[in-house]
């Protein structure tokens, strides 16, 4: 017990038919990010710096749905959001509606460190970014061909769903996975992009931190805010634990999922693994989501009720694991 621990995720809810190369690509990215985090922890960087560093890496890589590679709004643009929280004093920062900020998680950090506020959004956030001199790029930078294609499919799926009411897995025999796709957020899993990236860390001093970043829901209404920037929903850290969630945003918000892990530890005395299992089992109702968490004692855990979650974790005593299913 004790020592540092780190976990990263690239979204809960994976298409069971995802090609092997894509799975391998994802695992390589998760491994690379874990290595960056581990290196930083070995150099004694505090947890709050490590989560920011790792999430920056995930944002910069176009593979997952954050920063470059973000899902697109119904208008084909990118609107990003992120939040970060520092366990010891529960300081936090969040941003939404970013369109030109290269690394949303770093802007969230600046909101936490440089303003009297906790959350800035849209034009006000962009203006703050300009004043802080953070790296800005054109909205085009974030848009990938893959996602342009996905948006088209999502729009088609939404109209098909509206007209033909594709049955969900629960009403079907279970055999024909291709005809009756798993759905998340109202989209077939082949089209739905896992929503977010995140990182949770506990350092050698037992300080926990968490950060989450996302482009949000494919084909979302402009101005839609999901769970990722909401403290207590997508992200939470306190003296005991650091948590980052991913999946159906609305379900995560209704269940205040990240806070729930900490609350059952604090008020019910559950340990980290029990807490994670409990909230995934009992707090999501029909919602589909996953989360990663670390405790001040150097434990790491993840839980999800989806088919798969891109994730990786490592602890100081040498344990390391990257997985999809």
């Amino acid at each position, binding site marked *: 017990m004790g020592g540092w621990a780190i976990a990263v995720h690239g979204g809960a809810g994976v298409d069971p038919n995802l090609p092997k190369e894509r799975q391998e690509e994802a695992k390589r990215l998760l491994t690379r990010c874990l290595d960056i985090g581990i290196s930083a922890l070995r150099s004694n960087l505090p947890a709050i710096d490590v989560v920011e560093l790792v999430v920056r890496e995930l944002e910069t890589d176009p593979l997952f749905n954050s920063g470059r590679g973000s899902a697109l709004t119904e208008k084909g643009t990118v609107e990003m959001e992120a939040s970060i929280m520092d366990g010891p004093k529960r300081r936090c920062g969040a941003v939404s509606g970013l369109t030109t900020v290269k690394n949303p998680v770093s802007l969230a950090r600046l909101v936490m460190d440089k303003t009297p*506020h906790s959350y800035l959004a849209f034009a006000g956030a962009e203006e703050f970014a300009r004043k802080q001199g953070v790296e800005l790029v054109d909205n085009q930078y974030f848009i990938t061909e893959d996602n342009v294609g996905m948006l088209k499919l999502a729009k088609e799926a939404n109209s098909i769903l509206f007209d033909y009411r594709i049955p969900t897995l629960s009403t079907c025999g279970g055999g024909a996975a291709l005809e009756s796709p798993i759905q998340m957020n109202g989209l077939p899993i082949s089209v739905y992009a896992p929503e977010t990236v995140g990182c949770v860390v506990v350092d050698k001093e037992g300080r926990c931190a968490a950060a989450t970043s996302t482009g949000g829901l494919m084909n979302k209404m402009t101005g839609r805010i999901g769970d990722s920037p909401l403290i207590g929903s997508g992200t939470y850290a306190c003296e005991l634990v650091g948590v980052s969630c991913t999946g159906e945003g609305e379900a995560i918000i209704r269940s205040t999922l990240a806070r729930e892990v900490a609350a059952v530890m604090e008020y019910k005395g559950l340990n980290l693994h029990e807490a994670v299992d409990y909230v995934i089992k009992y707090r999501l109702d029909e919602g589909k989501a996953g989360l990663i968490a670390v405790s001040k004692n150097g434990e790491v855990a993840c839980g999800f009720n989806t088919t798969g979650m891109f994730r990786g974790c490592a602890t100081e005593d040498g344990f390391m694991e990257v997985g999809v299913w």
Partner: protein
Amino acid sequence: MGWAIAIHGGAGDIPLSLPPEKRLPREAGLRRCLEVGIAALKARNHPLDVVELVVRELENHPNFNAGKGSVLTTTGTVEMEACIMDGKTMKCGAVSGVSTVVNAISLARLVMEKTSHIYLAFDGAEAFARDQGLETVEMSHFITPENIERLKQAQEADRVQIDYTQPIQKETPKDAAVADGDSQIGTVGCVAVDNEGNLATATSTGGLVNKMVGRIGDTPVIGAGTYANHLCAVSATGRGEAIIRGTVARDVAAVMEFKGISLKEAAAYVIDRVPPGTAGLIAVSSTGEIAMPFNTTGMFRACATEDGYSEIAIWDSTSK
């Protein structure tokens, strides 16, 4: 059991010396809004409808920091936010950065009922309001002379404030006299339960005086300023940043559930854990209990229960 309702018009450093011309209109406002809520409950309206109705009234009242009478951002504009949640279904809706919609709480309700999302903000929220045919006006409709003055004072003191904040303590008393008069308004909220245990909460605000453009507070963050589940409905007010870190509204319900204590005890427990002078809340439980704790000097509030009890207050009964 029976129905119960509580409303607030903001917690903060409301001085005991608040002059009658500042105090009376707000008390009258609370009284009227409470009566609107009571009538709606007596007519067996669902708590979700009741809280929306009451908060619309509070938004329209110019002496509270919501809708008309909202405090101003650092550039002198209005950016309103609101949130509504149904305890039984846990459906919720929230909006931020709204500048032309007469009743932000109704927009939040529409987000909840007419979209697959929970939270819309800024341009997207405004566009949705127009799509839905909600009443919109020029932003100037919401701006009152008191708030222009409040912003001026805050900018001179170079700070952001909850609106009740007394001028910086280290300064001379004469500054206290200047700022004191106009600083007494705050976020509004309403929580209600009917005699079947259906619970709902609604909160609405203009935010912090002199806030940065784009600043979002606790009101629209589910679990921070607003929350309801099958146990209770909560609406918080005060320093948004502290309420967010403290996940105040969610914690009241969590503490009730996990510690097995009463609403009153849970609410007091949660308020105790946020820094002094930063927060207050109103809450009702599924069994008709009411709690209205605050760790600020005062909180504009009112409540009533079906058995005939009612109360309108600003400070603690002990501080008179």
